[in-house]
């Protein structure tokens, strides 16, 4: 019997990339439940559709690249991209938006750059931004949360939801401005008036009806991933702290030009989804812990800047993509101090 001849180590920790990705999907469940409870089945449908599209695209590309299809499907990375994209897209958006964004994410943002591990930009965010820029009308219609619906209305049932998604039959009254939209469009009212008059705030507790719970759901999922050591705390904590700091500095007590309270920024829009599921994407973020701190903090600052002074009410996708650009640069300057060396060295330093 020939003996195996391989180099050490001969043992391996249980778990592989597929397991990591499964954990990530598992961790999105609290957020998805919150989304579905407050906004109806739209998000779940998005997630299912995007996942299938992602897997189909992945398989097709793998077939084209003449790689073993199942081996790559089994790392679940495509599914995760689909799930995250489905969670980001507005519920009940037309089916083709889901298809275009997912296809773009997998085919262009991921595989045209070399596939798993080689893409410089977060595929889900690329897909999201492409449809956001191309189809702004469809992309800015977010469903009204259950608690802020006008009297006599209820959430869309599964059937009417499917109708809306596949036949694009617009049903008025089911969309509403998100908390961040409200702040973006506000230029005359004090913050406390907004909280009193706008239904989305009136029906909410801290940061807008539904949204606060969705964000808390993703926060729970993120905490679970941290507990499972799927990623380190550095990037998410840095991002949330930076965002909080920015919001605190520019809150100005609630005038009509206020950017909104820190709590609003932490618990609305895509903050928590971004902090724990998007910026922690290892492929496109900085590698060292110091690098992750810089990466996360920069995203936090950028999110606030774009939300407050940019053209878009939410900014996670743009901030993440911008910092994806900067990740290799950050890596260059944040090489950790190696054992036995006096100080960390820059990666540009070629001394032996």
């Amino acid at each position, binding site marked *: 019997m020939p003996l195996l001849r391989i180099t050490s180590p001969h*043992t391996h920790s249980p778990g592989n990339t597929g397991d990591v990705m499964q954990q990530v999907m598992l961790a999105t469940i609290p957020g998805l439940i919150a989304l579905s409870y407050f906004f109806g089945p739209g998000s779940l449908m998005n997630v299912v559709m995007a996942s299938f599209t992602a897997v189909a695209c992945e398989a097709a590309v793998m077939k084209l690249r003449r790689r073993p299809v199942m081996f790559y499907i089994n790392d679940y990375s495509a599914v995760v991209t689909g799930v995250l994209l489905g969670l980001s897209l507005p519920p009940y958006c037309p089916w083709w938006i889901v298809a275009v964004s997912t296809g773009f994410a997998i085919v262009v943002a991921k595989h045209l750059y070399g596939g798993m591990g080689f893409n410089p930009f977060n595929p889900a965010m690329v897909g999201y931004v492409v449809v956001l820029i191309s189809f702004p009308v469809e992309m800015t219609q977010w469903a009204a949360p259950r608690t802020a619906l006008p009297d006599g209305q209820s959430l869309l049932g599964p059937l009417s939801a499917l109708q809306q998604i596949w036949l694009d039959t617009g049903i008025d009254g089911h969309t509403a401005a998100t908390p961040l939209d409200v702040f973006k469009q506000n230029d005359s009212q004090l913050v406390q008036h907004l909280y009193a008059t706008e239904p989305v705030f009136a029906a909410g507790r801290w940061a807008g009806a539904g949204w606060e719970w969705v964000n808390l759901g993703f926060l729970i999922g993120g905490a679970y991933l941290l507990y499972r050591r799927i990623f380190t705390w550095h990037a998410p904590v840095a991002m949330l702290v930076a965002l909080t700091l920015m919001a605190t500095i520019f809150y100005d007590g609630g005038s009509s030009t206020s950017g909104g309270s820190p709590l609003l920024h932490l618990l609305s829009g895509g903050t928590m989804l971004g902090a724990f599921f998007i910026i922690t994407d290892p492929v496109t973020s900085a590698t060292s812990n110091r690098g992750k701190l810089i990466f996360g903090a920069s995203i936090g600052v950028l999110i606030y800047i774009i939300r407050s002074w940019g053209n878009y009410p939410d900014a996670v996708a743009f901030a993440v993509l911008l910092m994806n650009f900067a990740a290799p640069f950050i890596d260059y300057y944040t090489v950790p101090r190696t054992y036995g060396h006096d100080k960390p060295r820059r990666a540009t330093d070629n001394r032996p």
Partner: protein
Amino acid sequence: MRKIWGIPGGIHPPENKDQSLQQPIAEIALPELLVLPLSQHMGTAAEPIVAVGERVLTGQEIAAAKGLVSAPVHASTSGEIVAIEERAIAHPSGMTDLCMVLRPDGRDQWIELHACEDYTRLDHQQLVEKVRAAGIVGLGGAGFPTAVKLNPRANYDIDTLIINGTECEPYITADDALMQAHADEVVAGTRLLAHMLDNPQQVLIGIEDNKPKAIAAMEAALAAGEGHPGSAVEVCTFPTKYPSGGEKQLIQILTGREVPSEQIPANIGVVCQNTGTAQAAWRAVRFGEPLIARITTVVGEALQTQRNIRARLGTPIAHVLAAHGFDAERCSRLVMGGPMMGFTLPTADVPIVKTTNCILAPSREELPPPPPAQACIRCGMCAEACPASLLPQQLFWYSQAQDYEKLQAYNLSDCIECGACAYVCPSNIPLVQYYRASKSTIRRMETEKEKSDRSRQRFEFHKQRIAREEAEKEAKRAARKKAAEQAKQKLAQARAAGGGERTGGSQADPVSAAMARAQTRQVAPQQQQAKLERAVSSAESRLQRARQRCDEAGDEQRDKLQARVKEAQARLDDARQKLAAHEGTGQAADKPDPVATAIARAQAKMALPPAERLRNNIASLQKRLATARQKLDQARQAGSDTVEALQTGVAKLETKIAATRAELDDLQAGAVPEHAQAPSADSEAATAAIEKAKARAAARADMSPEEKLRSQIESLQDRLQKARLRLEKARADNDDNTDAFRTAAEKLEAKLTQTQQQLQQQPVTTDTSH
């Protein structure tokens, strides 16, 4: 309780240590053959000192250490040396190496051992020699000769001795078993090593907290030896984490210090030894017992019995496995060492050596073959696990790209190959394999670079030498040529002075030479003046430029530029001074000054009475003789080839002195009045030459520059004609010197045209100068 420092990274793989600790340390039967590789340690291989067919006793040295970093090999049992040949050894590459093959006779007859009751009575060197002679090397895995480590350089101030009982690798329990069974010996060994290192301030035994029995045994042994002189020994326990047992990591855990990159622990005052090494060193000193056996863990699900054995070095692993109910069908690979850092064996025929701490024969289920690697998702788990704080994924990336510069920039050389990164990698990438390959490539590249550097240096030196020799030859050639030209000129002058006849003789020569010298100098002043004028004008323009720039420049540059202006000014002044001085001498040079001085010198010489002259001659000859003798002595001492030549030179000088002395004697004896009245014919000729030269010089002084040039042209034409004649004659005779004559004629032609041109320009220049 001492402070325990943390190390970055690290992993917690399943320990799998229980299965081999269920039984006490066992002995196994002797195999049919023992195979003892000559290189079981780091450093130079040992050299056989017994012949094939010789009978050896247990513990007898059969191969001697060669060089400082080496270790001897001893017979593990008594028997006959049946072969010294290449055999497969325990090496990841499956290579073969020279081994001594011993057939045991089963009697296990020991050689006489020299015990030592009290090692404190031996001096340090004797102790080191005992450890060295016993063939003790680091038993933890590296196999570095212990004696070398116990003899640190004088500039290393060792303040800490660490005994490594960490044993962080899964499965391995050899040190654990040893500490449980022979804690007293380990403690005694620890004290011995501390004694040998001059009792450092702290002596620490580091043990992971997953070995409670070993810790208890060691503490009991320490307590039993309470009151022992020397450093206090402390057992330090710390949380289990792989790779805490790495030397660098253990030092960091126990002292907080880091071994600087590419240095050894002694640099920071630490010496680290394995527990097994400490015990072996103690047995070597106390009982005189060489290292012929070690404790090895035999473990794995493919074995029926899993335990620790005291294995004789050289025992083939197949024999060990057979003694433990090895099921080859279930086993996927054989690992020497642990699952994290051990290496797979190509065959079970290789022997147990000094560094074999574990033989792992896992079943396929226990250590399944690695799954295919997936793409790196840059998750960073490897960086989290790395105990050296490296960025394994960057190293992997650049290893794939074969970017060796970047790999060095990312400190690949600081990777200890612990395998933690590969263990945690969710994409199952065999990272360590990449690092090893890159490291070996870098090592190879460095050796090659060193080699090419050396040969380049050699080549450059060679080139320099050739160039130097060339230059020397060229200089010699130039000197010869110059001498020849001078001689020619002298000849021409003599002819001119003596009316074309060779009347000059030896005494007339100095005069004509002086004339010739004066003449050459007379041509030069014009050129020199032109040169100096050029220098002045260029200095002027430089000064102007510097001033301009100074005016244009900003404040911060002004200082610098002003200095430059000053410098230019100084240079200009210097050039002007030189020119003025030259103009002064140049006017004088028109007068026959040099000629006059030369004449005066010659006259002075002539005026000396012959006796005086001869005496002078003798004095100078004697001086030359003295130096020649000195040279000869030197040459003799150096055994040089020139001795003979020098000898003849000395002899010649001696005869010359004798001749001159004889002449002087003659002179003094008879011809004193003769000398006063009648100068010799020679001196007559000389005076005539002097007269002629004087006339010439006077004529020249009167001549206008134009006339001077004319006369020059005339003489040149004359010379040219002669040269042409000579050339033709040479051509007719097919002389070897034809070429030389031709160039001489050409040169004369050129000079002639030049002088003619000067003549044409003369009136114009004189006009402008007035």
